[in-house]
């Protein structure tokens, strides 16, 4: 464990985008603001790449800690950490972020509030980079919140759309529910060990005595304290990474102004939850918490993959796909350790960034149309189509693309210990290949079905970043494995890949694509506009159907499957929505009751005003004899005299 001040330059990585953010806010010109932010990101890339290079040579994490504050004699330290986990993340975030910034400069060209948009993007980058570099649970939480705020601002950036404003609110509040778990975990860890640093010369939370203390202390339900804290942290991760049942905000977050912000939420921010689990994995070790992570991840992956099949919105399909892939990453971390999960996180970041930016380019080219039923014929946008397909094959995990290598690793790791998870993941992979193919079939071939003009290619400032990402989406996996990604992360590596794993991996990806093509081939699809092909091939179709029956069987089963899926998803969503509404309703009702009956009726009217009124009444009663009428006074005097006289007489006798 080397603690050294020589690492203080790490601070620049999150600081540079922050400085850019401040300047961008002060800047009146949108162009200048975007240039400042791009420059800030490019500048941050330099120390980030240095950190990445350095991290490969480390035997143990390097840290740079300093005291932030003291509480009751205990000091709370903050610090930054350099290890493969943080080194690879900062390199990926700055690199992908830089490309996004470049792309956004063109995409947001016409928006009047471009300067503000870039300021938010930079703020987001600050939060994300700080988060991955944090060596303290509390510091990580603070950056985590900055990320949350930035995403709130970005999602509701086009607040004129009521749905966007509502989606921002929903995202913030939903992730906050998870954050409550995170906060309690921090308190618990601090109370039990007094340490919030992850690594600090043997005294950190994730090493030595503190970890043993937590593993020895007992928590709830037969779990150790470490296990409970791990689960609470996982609750935080569920919120941030859109896992079941807190995934509801993520598809809505597509209301963000651009695929750029959609990408940020899909490929970067949501990865924060996965990163948190990876970072604190020693707490999960040897505890049933890891099973929870695996099963929640697998269930999410399956659910979201089904949901993606039923969507018609280009960005929404990608959003559900992201939820599904995040589930796989969780599975990867749970079954295979940091290396497996993080490998998939990185390769996913590249191809999903590519897909989102590509989707942005498509939407841009189709005149802001997002419904795939109204697309078609997008293949005219040759460059975009080419790079989009690169991303798509990687997502499908077609052999030898990045997605294949990383997903294969998850499957192999799961196969050893948890066959249930393995088969779930296999089904997820099959469905993934299917929904990607379905989407591509809708979008690219055929004639354009939209109401606007023909799709037109996006400008080069938008396509250039896509090509860079496409190269990574295809080749990153191969090179990563070749250069020893697993040794780099120093984690577990499933040494042997049983033949069945490889066979399944091949079968599901290629099979999924083939299956989908088979179902769709020659079928009319897309919007209200009838496909002209069906008129020409109508009879031939029927003959083919009668001849083989395969199509029908597939169609029937898959259609049924889809209908059932849609129904299940709808019911699930309805139940979740009902719960949400129920909670909202209950909160409103309680709040109403407190307001009207508690405060207004009981405390104010009855207690306070009532007391005041009765005081007033008694005052009136007391003043009534003193009406100012001479006659009434005389009457009282006379009465008094009589009583007095009566007493006097009584006393005398």
């Amino acid at each position, binding site marked *: 464990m080397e603690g050294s001040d020589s690492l203080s330059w790490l601070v620049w990585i999150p600081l540079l985008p922050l400085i850019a953010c401040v300047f961008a806010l002060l800047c009146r010109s949108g162009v200048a603001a975007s240039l400042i932010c791009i420059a800030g990101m490019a500048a941050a890339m330099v120390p980030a790449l240095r950190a990445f290079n350095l991290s490969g040579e480390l035997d143990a994490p390097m840290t740079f800690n300093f005291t932030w504050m003291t509480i009751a004699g205990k000091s709370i330290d903050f610090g930054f950490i350099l290890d493969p986990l943080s080194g690879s993340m900062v390199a990926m975030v700055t690199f992908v972020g830089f490309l996004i910034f470049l792309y956004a400069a063109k995409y947001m060209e016409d928006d009047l509030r471009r300067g503000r948009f870039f300021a938010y993007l930079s703020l987001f980058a600050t939060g994300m980079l700080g988060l991955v570099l944090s060596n303290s649970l509390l510091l990580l939480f603070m950056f985590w919140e*900055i990320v949350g705020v930035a995403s709130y601002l970005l999602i509701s950036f086009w*607040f004129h759309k009521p749905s966007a404003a509502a989606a921002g609110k929903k995202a913030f509040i939903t992730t906050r529910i998870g954050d*409550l778990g995170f906060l309690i975990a921090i308190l618990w860890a601090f109370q039990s060990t007094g340490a919030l640093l992850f690594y600090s010369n043997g005294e950190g939370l994730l090493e030595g005595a503190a970890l043993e203390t937590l593993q020895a202390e007992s928590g709830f339900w037969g779990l150790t304290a470490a296990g409970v804290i791990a689960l609470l942290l996982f609750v935080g991760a569920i919120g941030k990474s859109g896992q079941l049942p807190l995934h509801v905000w993520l598809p809505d977050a597509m209301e963000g102004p651009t695929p750029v912000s959609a990408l940020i939420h899909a490929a970067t921010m949501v990865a924060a939850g996965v990163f948190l689990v990876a970072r604190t994995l020693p707490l999960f070790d040897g505890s049933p918490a890891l099973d929870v992570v695996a099963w929640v991840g697998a269930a999410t992956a399956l659910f979201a993959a089904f949901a993606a099949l039923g969507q018609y919105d280009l960005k929404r399909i990608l959003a559900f796909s992201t939820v599904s892939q995040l589930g796989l990453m969780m599975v990867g971390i749970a079954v295979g350790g940091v290396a497996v999960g993080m490998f998939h996180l990185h390769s996913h970041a590249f191809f999903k960034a590519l897909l989102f930016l590509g989707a942005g380019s498509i939407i841009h080219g189709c005149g802001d149309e997002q419904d795939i039923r109204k697309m078609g014929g997008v293949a005219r946008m040759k460059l975009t189509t080419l790079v989009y397909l690169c991303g798509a094959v990687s997502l499908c995990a077609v052999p030898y693309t990045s997605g294949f290598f990383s997903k294969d690793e998850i499957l192999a790791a799961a196969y050893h210990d948890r066959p249930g998870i393995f088969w779930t993941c296999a089904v997820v992979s099959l469905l993934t290949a299917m929904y990607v193919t379905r989407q591509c079939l809708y979008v690219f071939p055929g004639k354009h079905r939209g109401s606007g003009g023909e799709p037109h290619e996006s400008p080069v400032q938008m396509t250039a970043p896509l090509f860079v990402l496409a190269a990574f989406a295809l080749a990153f996996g191969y090179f990563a494995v070749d250069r020893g990604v697993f040794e780099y992360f120093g984690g577990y590596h499933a040494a042997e890949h049983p033949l069945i794993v490889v066979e399944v991996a091949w079968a599901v990806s290629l099979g999924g694509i083939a299956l989908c093509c088979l179902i769709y081939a020659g079928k009319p699809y897309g919007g209200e506009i009838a496909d002209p092909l069906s008129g020409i091939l109508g009879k031939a179709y029927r003959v083919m159907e009668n001849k083989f029956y395969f199509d029908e069987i597939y169609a029937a089963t898959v259609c049924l499957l889809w209908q059932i899926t849609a129904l299940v998803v709808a019911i699930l969503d309805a139940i979740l929505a009902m719960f949400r509404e129920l909670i909202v309703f209950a*909160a409103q009702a309680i709040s109403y009751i*407190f*307001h009207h009956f508690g405060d207004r009726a009981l405390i*104010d009217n009855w207690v306070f005003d009532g007391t005041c009124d009765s005081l007033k009444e008694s005052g009136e009663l007391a003043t009534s004899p003193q009406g100012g009428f001479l006659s009434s006074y005389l009457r009282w005097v006379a009465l008094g005299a009589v009583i007095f006289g009566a007493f006097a007489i009584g006393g005398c006798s």
Partner: protein
Amino acid sequence: MLAILTVVISYLGAFVVACTPPSRWREIRWVALITTILGLATAVCCATRRDAADGGFQDVLRYDWIPSIGASFHFGVDGISLPLILVTGIVAVCAVLTSWRMETRANEFYAYILALIGGVYGTFLSMDLFLLFVFYEIAIIPKYFIIAIWGSGRKGYAAMKLALYSFGGSALVLFGILAVYFASGLETFDMVRLMNEGDFSPEFQVVFFAVTFIGFAVLAGMWPFHTWAPTGHAAAPVAASMLLAGVVMKLGAYGCLRVAIGLFPWGAYYWAPTIAWLAVINIVYGALVALNQKDFKYVIGYSSVSHMGFVLLGLATLNLEGFDGAVLQMFSHGVLGAALFALVGGVIYVRTHTRKLDHFHRLIDRMPGVTWVFVVTGLASMGLPGFSGFIAELYALIGVWKAEHLGAPILLLAGLGILLAFGYVLVKTHEAFFRKSENTEENDPPTSYEPMTCAEKTACGILLGCSLVVGLYPDILTQWIEPSLEPILENIGKEVLRWTT
């Protein structure tokens, strides 16, 4: 010696302002501003001169006042009162800046405001119980007039309600003070001596802790004695709402800590679980009721009730972390509560002339600058890391976790309160700034309002800046607070050990 200047300056300023004819309101506001700035400068001087390692009273000044009963003019600053006089100074300056355009009877208005500020300083600086009570009363009277004369809505009702609640509370406090005086047999009102030498029986402590604590807690907005707060805040003119939320509520909390807990440690231990429950009720109940308000100022008023719950919760922990949290929350809510009221009751109200949430129609289009300042302030007040609210709540929650006499339900309810705070801040922000209103105003609303004036920007900047500084570097306050809490905690530890065995 230095500290008492804050009180002297405020009353001098009040006197000068009161003697100036109201037609010269432009000069009057400058006098008020300079007075408050001098007060703040004095407080800052106290802070810079302070020896942080020594937790005792510094800058002490003592003259005999009524020797026959042992009352004296006895002033001093310790680490608990220092953050509070700082926040008083800050909020005072910003309150004057926010009501920069006040013309109606400006001389009286500023005279009352400065008298109120002087009373608050005096209360925080008093080391003598009798003196503390006198200043505590002095601070109440100007509030009545300010609300009754310059208020809005049901101002007469609100003013009377506030005065009655305050006086009701102070009656209990007076009762407690007299009981302490006679029971101790020391013939002194000196708080330090009473704390160290006053030897009160456990039964006495149990009864009179309750009496004094409730007396002070009324002013801190403790449930169910809280309803004066939203009504009073809403009816008051902006400067008064800022001072009410920012510092006057802290008077109550300060009294709870200094007098009730300081003098009756065993009583505090006995009642701590009850207080903790009342505190979480404050937090959750306040947040839920805030969610149901239609008047923007009432939302902020109830959020104050909710936030003050964290102060009470911190006090109920009876440990260093919790007390730290309580004092930090007093500071934090002081600046953030004042900032929220400045925005809602001042900046927004003078432009829209309404506070009804359903009359606001997409304010973001028409006052974008104000909107973003409000969003940041709202985020800060709901405990966003980086701002003071987060640190204060974190300390209080750590305190709760550590306190053996408080259970997990308290912690969970407080956590729920934090979540609800997110709910009402975001929901109400949405309603006020982003929502399309169904019932738009009768006459055409202007398409854009005047941007924030320089004075308003300065006020909001100062308040948010203070919150940010404390949020990023809490040691700046805790270095003073912690040493001064030690004697109180030692006393609690001693008494608890003594009466439990």
